[in-house]
Every structure is written in structure tokens, then in C-alpha cells.
């Protein structure tokens, strides 16, 4: 923040109500002996100090004066007179701040700068850690989903009630075969290996082809980066009405009805 932006905050800083970044900003300017903020805050301290007059007037105990003077006298015996105020002895003006004050201010500025640097680094590290954590959670979730799916696929595949089907490539005979396991209640499991990668704008879509009527969409899927497919989709048609299972290539998001020729197909007996 600039000195002009900090100017309205001087009194609040002197009052001690500022927090967080605003307070740090003012302190940073003071630490580097800012020629606008240092006198600005000094004047603000004078203004704020006048709030002392808002305290209800109270009379100090009469004995207090004597106590103070007694304490002073006991210290006065040991203490020699201290140096007098420095009066200007030549036209050359004395520095406003003594050397130690500059050194202290410089040290404070260094410490503040270092602390802010450390803090920024820590914020960055924290942000990076959060990002990594989010990614790890997402990866973990994806892995868990995959494990769950594979368990379901295995369950359908291993069930004695499942009907195994082989969906053969119809267009390109060099394409791998797709396996399907049709279970009356658990759904249809689809597995395949060594599937070719697909453009992102395209997807594969599984259809139930009924004995009469239009094909019914069952699932949309894509091979994973390893070229594998493993999924289970619900059976939304009585099994005895299914004449065939077919897979077509469709635009991403799928289609209500097939828009391309069947790429894989298996007859259901």
C-alpha cells in the first residue's frame, strides 16, 4: 500500500485497533523510516493520546506524590546526572534519529522483510500442499471408484446367472473383442482390452437391440489410457426381449439413437 492509502489508517494504528495486513503495512512503512508515515503516525499518536481526557476525572491519593518522590530519591543517590538535551551548536542540524534508532529501524525492516518473505513462502507452500492434497483426494476417489467398478464387474462375471456374450467387431476385424456378461438383476458388465484410443469428441455407446422396436441406450464409455474397458450398467429391459447388444461410436455425450454403423455386436439367444 502507498503512503496515501495508509494515511487514513494512522489514527486507527495509533489507537491499536488495526489488525492483519493493514497493521503490517503501516508497520512496514514505519520500519523503513518512511518520511510520510513516521510523522503521520506521530501526529496520530498525539491525537489519540488526547482521548485520555475522556476518562472520568479522578483525584489521585494524596500519598501518591510522596511515594513517587521517595522512590525517586532512593534512585537519585546512585544515579549521576544524565546528559542534557542536545542544543544545536552550529547551523548543522542534528539528525532526527540517533544512529541506534536507524540501526534498530534497519534491523526491524530486515526482520519484517524476512518475516513477510517467510510468510509468503509459507502461504505458497500451503497453497501448493492444498492443491496436491486435492489432487491426491481426487486420485484416491478415482482409484476407489475403479476398484468398486472392478468388484462389480467381477461379481457379474462370476455369477452363474450371467450370460456371457462376445461382441465381435463388425467393421474392422482387427479390433479387439468386447466381452459382455448379462445378468438379469445386477446389470450388464462390459470388459475389453487393447482398445484403440479415441478422439475426445467421440465416445462409445452400448445399446440393447430389442426384438422389436428401436435400440435402447445402455451406457456411454471410453477406453482408459491403458486401452481397457470395465463397467457395469443396469439392465433397463427384460432380458428375454433383448435380441442383441451393439456398440456404436457416437459424438461425446452420446446420442438418443445410433448415428453410425454398429462397430461391435453380439446376438442374445
Amino acid at each position: 500500500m502507498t503512503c496515501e492509502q495508509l494515511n487514513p489508517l494512522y489514527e486507527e494504528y495509533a489507537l491499536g485497533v488495526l489488525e492483519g495486513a493493514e497493521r503490517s503495512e503501516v508497520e512496514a512503512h514505519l520500519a523503513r523510516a518512511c518520511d510520510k508515515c513516521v510523522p503521520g503516525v506521530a501526529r496520530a499518536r498525539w491525537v489519540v493520546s488526547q482521548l485520555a481526557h475522556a476518562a472520568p476525572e479522578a483525584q489521585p491519593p494524596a500519598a501518591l506524590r510522596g511515594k513517587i518522590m521517595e522512590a525517586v530519591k532512593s534512585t537519585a543517590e546512585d544515579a549521576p546526572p544524565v546528559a542534557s538535551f542536545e542544543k544545536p551548536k552550529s547551523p548543522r542540524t542534528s539528525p532526527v534519529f540517533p544512529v541506534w534508532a536507524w540501526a534498530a529501524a534497519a534491523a526491524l525492516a530486515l526482520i519484517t522483510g524476512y518475516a513477510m518473505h517467510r510468510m509468503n513462502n509459507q502461504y505458497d507452500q500451503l497453497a501448493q500442499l492444498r492443491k496436491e492434497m486435492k489432487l491426491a483426494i481426487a486420485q484416491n476417489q478415482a482409484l476407489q471408484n475403479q476398484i468398486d467398478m472392478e468388484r462389480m464387474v467381477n461379481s457379474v462375471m462370476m455369477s452363474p446367472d450371467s450370460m456371457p456374450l462376445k461382441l465381435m467387431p463388425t467393421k474392422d476385424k482387427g479390433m479387439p473383442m468386447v466381452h459382455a456378461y448379462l445378468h438379469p438383476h445386477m446389470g450388464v458388465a462390459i470388459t475389453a482390452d487393447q482398445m484403440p484410443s479415441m478422439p475426445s469428441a467421440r465416445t462409445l455407446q452400448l445399446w440393447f437391440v430389442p426384438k422389436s422396436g428401436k435400440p435402447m441406450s445402455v451406457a456411454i464409455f471410453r477406453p482408459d489410457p491403458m486401452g481397457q474397458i470395465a463397467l457395469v450398467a443396469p439392465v433397463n429391459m427384460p432380458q428375454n426381449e433383448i435380441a442383441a447388444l451393439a456398440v456404436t461410436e457416437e459424438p461425446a455425450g452420446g446420442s438418443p439413437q445410433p448415428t453410425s454403423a454398429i462397430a461391435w455386436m453380439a446376438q442374445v439367444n
Partner: protein
Amino acid sequence: MLLAVVQPWPEGKQPTDAALMERILQRDSGALEALYDRYGRPVYSLVLRISQQPASAEEIVQDVFLQLWRSADRFQISRGPLEPWLFTMARNRALDFLRLKREKQRRREDSDSDILPSAVVNPDPEGDIDRSRRAEQVRALMTSLPAAQRRAIELAFFEGMSHSEIAESTGEALGTVKSWIRGGLLRLKQSLGEASS
């Protein structure tokens, strides 16, 4: 015991704060007595308002004036008037006491060295403006503020609370508290500016 022998003040002429501080540097305890007579009451009133305990207030005021005696060489009148230095030191001491009492771990806002007057032209370098008139000005201003706004400023000054602590204490929105305090301080500044002009 031997204290410095100093010249008596010319009759009918009040010594300035600077002159008294100069004499304190010469170990003239009479100068400290004169400063106590001048500022003892407002300093005690301030400290009592913060600490709320007469016995503690007495100790704090004693500590403040002893500090003035011991650290007189750190005060340079050319940098500004004595009064704000004294008030700020008293307030800090009393707030420290209050914080200790509340067992609050909070960083002290200002060290004593921080509050040394800086090279700035202050509106009242040596009592040109009558102190009692200025005190009345401040009291009148505080009285004229709406109760909630006055309360917010009092919590800040006399109890050392921050913006968010005041918001929490009063149940008001943080933005409202900030606005009250900023507005109140601006009016105080303007009022004191007028008083000094």
C-alpha cells in the same frame, strides 16, 4: 543523599515541560514534582479508567513517573510535546496490566521507544493551547457521539481492543465498528485541529 542544586523558578512564571525535563536531567526532583502536579491527575484518571482498580492505578502511575525520571534522556522536547508521550506510556502500562489480568496473550502495541515523539510539528508544542480547554473539547466530542460509537472508541482506547474484538464484544458487524471508529477519530482530529488553530 545529594540532589542537584538548581535555581528556583522565577516567580509567577510557569516552567515549560521542556524546562522541567531539562532540570530532571540535572537530577532535580523538584522538576518531577512539578510535572506530577501538572499531569498526575489526568494520568491517574486515565490509568484508573483502564485498570478499574485504585491500588493498581496508584502503582502504575508511580511506575510511569519513575520511568519519566529514569528515561528523561530519551525524551527530546524538540521532537514534540511531553503530554502525548506521558499519556501513551501510561495507557500502555495500564493496558498491559489489564491484559495480564485477563491472561490475554496479546502483543503489546507499542514499546516505550516506539512512542518517543517524532520530528513533527504538533499543534500544541508547549501548552500554547490551554490543556483544560483541550480536555473539554475531547469530552464534548465524546458526549456528542452516538452511544454505540462512543462505546466502540472507549473499548479501543480504554480496553485495548482491536476492531474484531470490539465487533465480537458488541455484536456489531466488523464493517460497522470500523466505520464508527474511523469516523469518531476523524471528528476528534478535526476538533483538535480546530482547537489548535
